[in-house]
């Protein structure tokens, strides 16, 4: 099996099969792959001997499109990459362009951005929890999670008119003022939310079946995680206490007090615990932020036609899935010369091979769920 070591899943072909090995195809259409992902599994009996991910079914050429749109025109496109957490994508892009323009959003805008982004993080993790639990067979949490997510999407809809692909932020700040009752809505949601997370934890965290399905499954060591460039909850569950919101703060995160949940084993159970804790911490940030939103302008004075000085910038944020980075090269015109999106799901998915190899076939679905990928981001 040497040729498969450390390759991030090289091609699995029939010519290299051993005597007892078969190839099993988890086709692009499958209820548990969270999108159009094709995984070819090389099986040795019940154990996975190698995996190969075939992606690109959702490739839409977003980076090429960026070269033919102005900076503001490109902003709605970024929502469609990680469509589950659109607000985060928008935040990363707007902040990257603001860096390129050597400007900054005003304080009020930064705080509102923080609140919306943390709400989006909760929504993204809720969707992850519901679908992951559903894959493992728990039929009920998905409905509870979507009930909570509905509340957040209502807040987004009231704020900017859209629930999913929100385009909530603009380059330089915000377009819309917060609506009347925004603070009240957020406070009400956050007040309720702690009990709700406790509900989900009651259903799953100490449940013997859940624990036996997730403990020891899909282990990723810290070394492997760093070598594979894995970021986000997956990295934190493997033991590395690192969060871009603390290491290289952006928006208004340096003002708030929150923790970085970390675990050591790097298995599916730990990733579950990390994300549950992250939801709690996000709620904590929202509560702090909404108490004290500064008054003032919501948009920096940058004019309508944006022509950043030539140069390049790489700016990344801690998206719910990991480190979402934007590398933008400007040549001084109104359209970016190159926009490169560093997609956390794409890079985290590479770790699937490491996590699934040696385990049982039945666990592959759980492992794909635990990495938390969105194909829109993997393929762009």
């Amino acid at each position: 099996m040497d040729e498969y070591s450390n390759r991030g899943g090289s091609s699995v072909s029939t010519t290299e099969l051993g005597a007892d090995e078969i190839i099993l195809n988890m086709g692009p259409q499958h209820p548990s792959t969270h999108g159009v992902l094709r995984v070819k599994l090389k099986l040795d009996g019940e154990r996975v001997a190698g995996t190969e991910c075939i992606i690109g079914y959702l490739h839409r050429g977003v980076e090429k499109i960026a070269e033919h749109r102005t900076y503001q025109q490109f902003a709605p496109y970024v929502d469609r990459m990680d469509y589950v957490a659109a607000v985060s994508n928008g935040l990363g892009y707007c902040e990257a362009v603001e860096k390129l323009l050597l400007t900054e959003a005003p304080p009020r805008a930064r705080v509102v951005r923080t609140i919306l982004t943390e709400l989006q993080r909760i929504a993204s993790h809720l969707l992850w929890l519901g679908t992951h639990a559903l894959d493992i067979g728990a039929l009920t949490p998905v409905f509870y999670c979507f009930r909570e997510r509905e509340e957040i999407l209502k807040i987004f809809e009231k704020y900017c008119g859209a629930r999913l692909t929100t385009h909530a932020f603009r380059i330089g700040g915000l377009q819309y003022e917060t609506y009347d009752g925004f603070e009240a809505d957020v406070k009400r949601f956050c007040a309720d939310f702690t009990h709700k997370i406790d509900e989900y934890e009651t259903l799953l965290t100490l449940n013997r079946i859940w624990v036996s399905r997730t403990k020891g499954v899909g282990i990723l060591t810290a070394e492997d995680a760093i070598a594979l460039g894995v970021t986000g909850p997956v990295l934190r569950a493997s033991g590395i206490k690192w969060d871009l919101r603390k290491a290289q703060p952006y928006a208004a995160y340096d003002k708030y007090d929150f923790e970085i949940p970390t675990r050591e084993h790097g298995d599916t159970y730990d990733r579950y615990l990390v994300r549950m804790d992250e939801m709690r911490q996000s709620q904590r940030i929202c509560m702090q932020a909404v108490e004290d939103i500064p008054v003032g302008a919501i948009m920096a004075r940058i004019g309508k036609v944006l022509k950043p000085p030539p140069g390049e910038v790489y700016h990344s944020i801690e998206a719910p899935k990991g480190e979402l980075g934007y590398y933008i090269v400007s040549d001084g015109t109104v359209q970016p010369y190159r926009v490169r999106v560093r997609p956390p799901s794409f890079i985290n998915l590479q770790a699937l091979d490491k996590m699934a190899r040696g385990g049982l076939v039945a666990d592959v679905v759980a492992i794909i769920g635990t990495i938390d990928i969105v194909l829109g981001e993997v393929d762009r």
Partner: protein
Amino acid sequence: MAEEVPEKDKPAAPLTEGGAAPSSAPGAATPKPDVPTAAVASPDAPKPVGEVEISAPAPAAPKPAAPAPKTAATAAAVAAKAAAPPPVAQQTVLDNELVRRMKSQFGGTIQEAWLDRKQAILVVAAPLLSEIARCCRDDEQFDMLVDLTAVDWPKREKRFDVILNLYSFAKNERLRLKTMVSEGESAPSVCSIWAAANWLEREVWDMFGIDFEGHPDLRRILLPDEWEGFPLRKDYDILKQDTAWVQANLGIESGQ
């Protein structure tokens, strides 16, 4: 994307808040390595225009009113003769401990070092990329490869920039390694240094056609295996592809 011609020396208003440095050289792109020590000495090194020439028909994106694109030869000639453009405040030369250590170890292969918007960039020679990367990982503690990508400057002799974004957990620092390769030239693969590079290099191959030497399995990742052409290159003509596909598969003339 049309460029403003350098000889007109029109300032491209940066529209920054609080009015920073006067406008940069219009349409300036990243400096080329063939302007050596001058770049290190003064930030006023002429930065030739990296023009973008899009083959007809031009895309329908709205563009600011601009003159017709000039050919590369004219522009280069003009750039070489152009007076030193005003300094670009967000790009400053970098000469810190790290750069000095790297230069003392690798000498002239570390071609340039500067800060763009306070982000450190090192331009290195392509053949030594993997040694330099290994040194970054092992000695300088840049243990994570955050991103590996490329940019196409078709007017340049070495048209591709291969860019590695690195991050050090211990120092909480980022570093960007850049190297230039020309078409057909292959860049060394860093797969053996960071396993993350596997899919990232495959994507660069898929989108740009840059070959990575030493990569265990270099094939297309996002596009179907039988795709022809490299989409993120600037001379990739979508309309031509579309017409060809429609002709081949539907047997009619495309209406575009």
